[in-house]
């Protein structure tokens, strides 16, 4: 296993570099640049200012030189500064990372802890009323766009019912406290968690249904093993592989996939930061966020592989 991990780490290096190259090139190819963000067309054109900005951000250099400079600086922990605030990208990304993992991590925990048991229930009670209801809820969770859920949730629970505050991470102007933080967290976490719950419910249901009619389950039942034991020890464990895969694929989302929800709720995470970076054509910020996302994807993929081995003893990495 150790050899496998080391090998995966080594393979990850070119993959990681490949990701950064692709994103860097895409940003460069995209129309517009920092110049366009800094100089608003409605206020007239200022060629001297444009030239100064181009020089300051090294945009007059060839693409490969710009990339090598960025990479060299990044390897030394120097990710540059944000266009908007001039704040160091490294500290900004860490701040966003912390906020994003708090929100999306909570949402995912909710989604997993509710979605998987409901998925099992839905499979065990296939074609029952409960199954139909849960399947309907699943479709809603998967198909409703998050901006609609977000704005709808704010309108209903925030404006009409006054159960939760309207966005943000804390009540502005008051001393921060944990209860206040929870009040702000609950709605975006539930809305994001609803989507995750739907996905996990659907996958769990399908995975359980796939194994529940297999011979070894029938054998276990014919040997007199109780239904619960059959379900948990035999069916559920064998259904775990696709669920683990799904969890592994979802881990990167914990870091930066709640773009719309963060934007609607004013939650200052990586997703919102990415939107701001794109609006400002802030390639240093975009690359900083990409760096974290790429690392998360690589690490989570490796963790998923490791988890496979524990879930299914037939899988070994030699």
């Amino acid at each position, binding site marked *: 296993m150790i050899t496998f991990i080391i090998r995966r780490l080594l393979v990850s290096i070119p993959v990681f570099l490949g990701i950064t190259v692709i994103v860097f090139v895409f940003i460069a190819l995209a*129309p*517009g640049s920092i110049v*366009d*963000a*800094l*100089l*608003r*067309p*409605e*206020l*007239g*054109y*200022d*060629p*001297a*200012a444009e030239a*100064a*900005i181009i020089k*300051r951000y090294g945009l007059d250099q060839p693409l490969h030189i710009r990339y090598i400079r960025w990479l060299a600086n990044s390897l030394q922990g120097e990710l540059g*500064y*944000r266009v*908007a*605030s*001039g*704040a*160091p990208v490294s500290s*900004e990304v860490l*701040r*966003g990372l912390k906020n994003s993992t708090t929100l999306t991590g909570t949402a995912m925990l909710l989604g997993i*802890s509710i979605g998987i*048991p409901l998925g099992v*229930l839905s499979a065990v009670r296939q074609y029952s009323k409960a199954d139909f209801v849960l399947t309907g809820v699943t479709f809603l969770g998967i198909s409703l766009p998050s901006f609609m859920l977000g704005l709808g949730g*704010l309108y209903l629970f925030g*404006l009409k019912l*006054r*159960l*939760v*505050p*309207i*966005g*943000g*991470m*804390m009540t*502005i*102007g*008051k001393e921060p406290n944990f209860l*206040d933080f*929870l*009040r702000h967290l*609950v*709605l975006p*976490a539930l809305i994001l968690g609803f989507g995750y719950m739907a996905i996990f419910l659907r996958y769990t249901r399908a995975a359980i249904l796939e194994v529940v009619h297999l011979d070894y389950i029938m054998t276990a039942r014919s040997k007199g093993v109780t239904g619960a034991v059959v379900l948990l020890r035999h069916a559920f464990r064998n259904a775990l592989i696709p669920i683990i895969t799904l969890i592994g694929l979802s881990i990167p989302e914990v870091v930066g996939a709640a773009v719309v929800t*963060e*934007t*609607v709720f004013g939650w*200052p995470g990586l997703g*919102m930061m990415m939107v701001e970076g794109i*609006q*400002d*054509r802030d390639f240093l910020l975009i690359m900083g966020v990409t760096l974290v996302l790429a690392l998360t994807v690589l690490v989570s993929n490796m963790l998923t592989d490791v988890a496979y081995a524990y879930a299914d003893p037939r899988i070994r990495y030699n």
Partner: protein
Amino acid sequence: MKKQIWFSTVVAVIASLMLASCATPAPAPVVEAPAAVPATEAPAAVPATEAPAAVPATEIPATEVPALRDTMIAAWVGPCCNGNDWVTPMDSGGDAHWFSKIYSRLTTFEVLDPIKQVVDYDSNSGVYGKLTGDLAESWAVSDDKLTWTFNLRKGVTWHDGVPFTAKDIKFTVELCFNPKNTMNPCHYVAAANGVVGVEEYKTEKATEVSGVKVVDDNTISFTFVKANSLFPVTINELFILPEHTVGKIKPEGMKEAEYWKTSQIGTGPFKWVKWEAGVSTELAAFDNYWRGKPKLAKIIRRHFEDTAAALIAFDAGEIQFTYITADEVARERENAEAVVHPGNSGVDNAMQFNSTKYPVFGNIEVRQAIMHAIDRQGIIDNVYEGAASMVSCLYGLPNLNAGVKPQQYDPALAKELVKPFAAELAKLPELQFDTYYADPLSLNVMTAIAQNLKDNLGLNLKPMQMTDGAAWTKRYYKDNASDVSFFGAANGPTGDRGFSYFHSDNAYPIGSNGVTGRFYKNATVDQLLTDARADFDTAAQDAKYQQVCEITKNELPNMYVWQTVRFHVVSKKVNDIIIIPAAGGGSYYDAAELWTVNE
């Protein structure tokens, strides 16, 4: 039983989360707005300010004195503002209204009629009135008309107690022109471009701008190469910075300096307290503000990325003002707790038909026909719901466009005008009608224009919202790849704005006249714009700009269709607020030191 326990657990988890949220939601206050648009102003010594009348937002029985909050919370979002995390005061673009709480300028504008503003929806409501002193008490031009001298207000101090002097002004101007300063572009210093020695300083051939002279602590002069009658107006958006703090920062690291995030100081009514990225920025009252101690103890800018979320927060009473679009106005006018503040956007909408790709649009008759083929008033009435007004040229201000009537909707005349070009027009393919305006209202407007042009001239325009201003800028200006474009153009604060759009010295890419490979050139217009800038007789100057208006209306280098009204919605709990929503944030006295918020 196990299932019941399990379900109970799930329900309990959700219920506990919801309960955690059930404490009383925090309320608070609000404020905002920017703008553009003043008239030109008198040259001779000008006495400074008397505060204009403030807007009585709350109706309170005479005997009842409401309790006041010490804090106002607001959303500075929408077209007024660069963004929540732009913490330096001199980046070009918006946020002037926010930074005017912290900083002051040499001059500023009074709002013409702030009370009328909230009831009058004409796009010229709420325009700026008299130019007035901010840090300058008075100003005068020399006999040769080349030197402007400003007498500064005495007794003004920075937030840390250090006296403000003329040296701070010279420092600010030179910092802005310093090519090493990473806080560039100091857009607002462009007014001083013609000052003696600026070019030498910018190219590092000189160590100071020789035309800016500190006469004494309370007097400063600007000497120009050519007479510039509009300087006291055009310099009015430049925030003055403290030399004793900012001067310690290396220009090469100016933008990135911690100073802007932690301890920046100004001479405005409120002091910087703290900035939390993505969350909020907090200011506290400056007790020694020269106009008087602010009545509010704190003003907080709550950060919103999404304007719809900001409006919901406003409706819930969490913030006291935010920006709204025209289609939200009707709803907010029904809100008993809110006052809608309309204001001149200072921005025209214009169209440009690419005559490089399609030479038929190079004919003035065709462009005139297009203007006659669009039912502009109908679109304003039915799509904008009145929140715009027709313009005859770039200039929206009455003193600059007086006597110049816009083309009227006349489909018969339009068809007559294009008769000689019918064959060429018939060969045109479907034309992409692009814009960077991403809102539904703009799409509706563009669809209406396209329908008019199809019905009356047989043109096929397909609206295309690019949602990305940067992409549009490249397509339109740099690549000259657009077919037909719909865009905005700032039309103020003076007629000198025409210099950047129409003067042949400003042909793109040197300036904003035209696009790559195509620009407008008219010797008469060039001369009028040059002469107007040097003219110290306001009436004569206006007359020159009116001529520019007439000529450009007839030749249509750009096809200006209307200027829009923008809106802010302010809680009725807010008293004495003056707020003008407009593009880019203009310079006007908003009486922030008088604002209060009822409990």
